[in-house]
């Protein structure tokens, strides 16, 4: 296999500063997009890693996991109106290989865009359940954010390693526990049990949210 790009970067002295700048850039893009959508009155909900950060931060702000993705749930019928307001504010609509997104100004990289998912649809044909309704959301810190349970369902549906880690994070801070399983669609309950079975409390989290050690 070719090894086209393996020149490791020099170790930098300004690493923390660059991390902070990257975090601020993502948050700024999220807040700018959300402000436009709030003003438009179009329903939306922040989903993905930023929604996880929102919920984790309610319990333990130090336990959040950085994400560079800005993901938003919208209704498909609102896409034309949303494109109009977002483009008027400097974003550019783009569709590439199944991803709908708003590029942030002149930046062309997919990873630096606002990614869209559509409510009530399956992201992949193999998904066990469709995405939630936009209405399953709650006001957050300057933006509408997906409800915790709907977010858990989305994470259990995509169930990539990153999603499993987000669910573990929620368990670690006590946002969710084994009682949630009863409220999940049966298709997702099995995956949730898998997360509970893998759960290892961090040092200092001397609780048993999962009930795994109950006699």
């Amino acid at each position, binding site marked *: *296999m*070719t090894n086209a*790009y393996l020149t490791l*970067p020099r170790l930098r002295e300004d690493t923390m500063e660059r991390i902070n700048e990257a975090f601020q850039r993502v948050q700024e893009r999220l807040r700018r997009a959300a402000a436009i959508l709030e003003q438009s009155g179009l329903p939306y909900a922040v989903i993905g890693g930023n929604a996880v950060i929102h919920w984790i931060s309610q319990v333990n702000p130090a336990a959040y996991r950085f994400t560079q993705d800005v993901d938003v749930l919208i209704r498909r019928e609102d896409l034309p109106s949303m494109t109009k307001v977002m483009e008027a504010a400097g974003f550019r609509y783009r569709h*590439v290989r199944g*991803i709908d997104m708003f590029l942030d100004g002149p930046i062309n990289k997919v990873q630096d865009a606002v*990614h869209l998912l559509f409510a009530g649809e399956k992201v992949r044909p193999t998904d066990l359940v469709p995405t939630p309704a936009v209405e399953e959301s709650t006001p957050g810190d300057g933006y509408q954010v997906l409800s915790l349970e709907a977010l858990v369902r989305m994470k259990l549906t995509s169930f990539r390693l990153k999603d499993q880690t987000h669910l573990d994070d929620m368990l670690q801070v006590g946002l969710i526990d084994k009682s949630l399983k009863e409220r999940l669609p049966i298709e997702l309950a099995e995956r949730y049990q898998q997360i509970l079975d*893998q759960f290892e409390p961090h040092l200092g989290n001397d609780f048993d949210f999962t009930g795994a050690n109950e006699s």
Partner: protein
Amino acid sequence: MTVAVLHDFSWQRMINAVEAVDRRQAHCVAAFLIRMKLTAFRTVDRVHLDDLLSVQLFDPSWTDRFPPEFASRLAAVFDVHEVWPDDYVEALTAAGFQSDEELVEFQTICRESGDQRLDTLPWFLAREKAHEKVRIA
């Protein structure tokens, strides 16, 4: 001898030498970290390895740097990694393919005939079902 060395001295060569040391140091640190992550290999470690892969800090060409017992874990890390669509399309186009179907056909022919040209593709294009391992969310 000393005269010859002084005569050969150039700042650029000095800078290159320092950078080479930096790069070796970065490689050592990265390899050590990857080995730790491969050893623990919890879900969170696999996410970290995927993150390192995403920013191209290592790739399958590193497999030989680790003990053979890590090979299957490394293979699992490379197998589940999803590339950004931009990177996939750019690599696909650069390799001369017009579509996913062309890539799949090329892979099939190479695998069946033992054609080494498969090894000239970027690793994420050369793997099985490469076109399905592209991020869509």
